[in-house]
């Protein structure tokens, strides 16, 4: 029987993001780089959140390696400038990659034969389109 814990993706520290972490990443992908306060203002205009929650989740994303930060000294004191370390496509690819790896790691040959079956079906369904395209 498949146990839920066997396919827990949280162990990989990737793929599972809290709704706020996802919002932060989306905002960063749009703005390229930002500060805690600017990100807070962007997200808070859509839904009510606390500034400290943004700061904590940015730190968690930094620990996961999804965002980078650099300290910048301004006249009002130092601040972190955050930027994404993975683009949206790279991030999605890494989520798929870690999901597939975990499934293979946990279910071995069953997962591999399933993927073979699944991919050949996809190939077959794509084949008529491709041959039409060639002609």
């Amino acid at each position: 029987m498949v146990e839920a814990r066997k396919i827990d993706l949280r162990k990989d520290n990737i793929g599972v993001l809290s709704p706020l972490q996802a919002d932060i990443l989306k905002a960063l992908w749009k703005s390229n780089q930002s500060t805690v306060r600017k990100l807070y203002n962007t997200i808070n205009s859509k839904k009510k959140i606390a500034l400290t929650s943004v700061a904590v989740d940015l730190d968690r994303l930094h620990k996961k390696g999804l965002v980078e930060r650099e300290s910048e000294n301004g006249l009002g004191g130092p601040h972190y400038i955050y930027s994404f370390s993975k683009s949206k496509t790279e991030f999605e690819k890494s989520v798929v990659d870690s999901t597939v790896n975990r499934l293979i790691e946990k279910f071995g040959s069953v997962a591999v034969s399933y993927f073979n079956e699944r991919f050949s079906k996809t190939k077959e369904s794509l084949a008529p389109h491709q041959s039409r395209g060639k002609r």
Partner: protein
Amino acid sequence: MIDACATGIGIEYAKLLLIIISLSVSASLIILLKMFSLSTKAKIVVIYSHLSTLLFPLVLFTTNIGCASVCASCYTDVSQLISLAIPTTFIVTTIAGFAIIPAVFVYSNRKSEIKRGKVFQFVKKSSRTLKIKQPKIYTLNTSKPVAFSFRNFKSAIFMSVGLFDILKIKEMQAVILHELAHIKQKSSALKLSTFFLRIFSPISILLRFHHTNTEEERKADLLAAKLQKTDKYIKSARNRIREYEKDFYG
């Protein structure tokens, strides 16, 4: 000759008694600190006396070995041994406690110094108001909101980048005033001493000694509120830091 003396190294009753007395005094001082409400200065003196008496057996032992290795009379004469060990303990504790360890502490915590800007000007102005020597300001490269001050030969304030990220200007100023108040009231030296105590004193751990510095924190908050003419900012700064910790530890 050295060999002949060195083979004689052993614990005699008089020396053993000295070690027991020293450790007992050390434990008594911690109990004194735990049970009585002392002034900041007295607390620092008691903490360093506790650490000195804790260190004394080690100094006594090494002095004993030193005397034996050169076949000096202090090896057999306990009073001479004590007259050497006591000042050595005092010198070692003073140098380590007030110079070496604080210097290492400052160096290891230092990230970058703030030498200009609004924060620097505010510290300069407030130090003048409080009639204290302007401390150096260092930032720590961590997102956790932390601030602490240090008073030794040179005073310093340490503030994390994370603190600047979550506090508004007035709240930040309240935190700076709070730290300057610690320097003025000499309580930053007490905080550092209790920090040493936690690291170097197994007796304080065995006796479950825990000094919270609550009174010192309250006094620093009061001074910050007095200078800002309101306690609104120091309270909101504390709330925001608490909120961060709540979010952080889930």
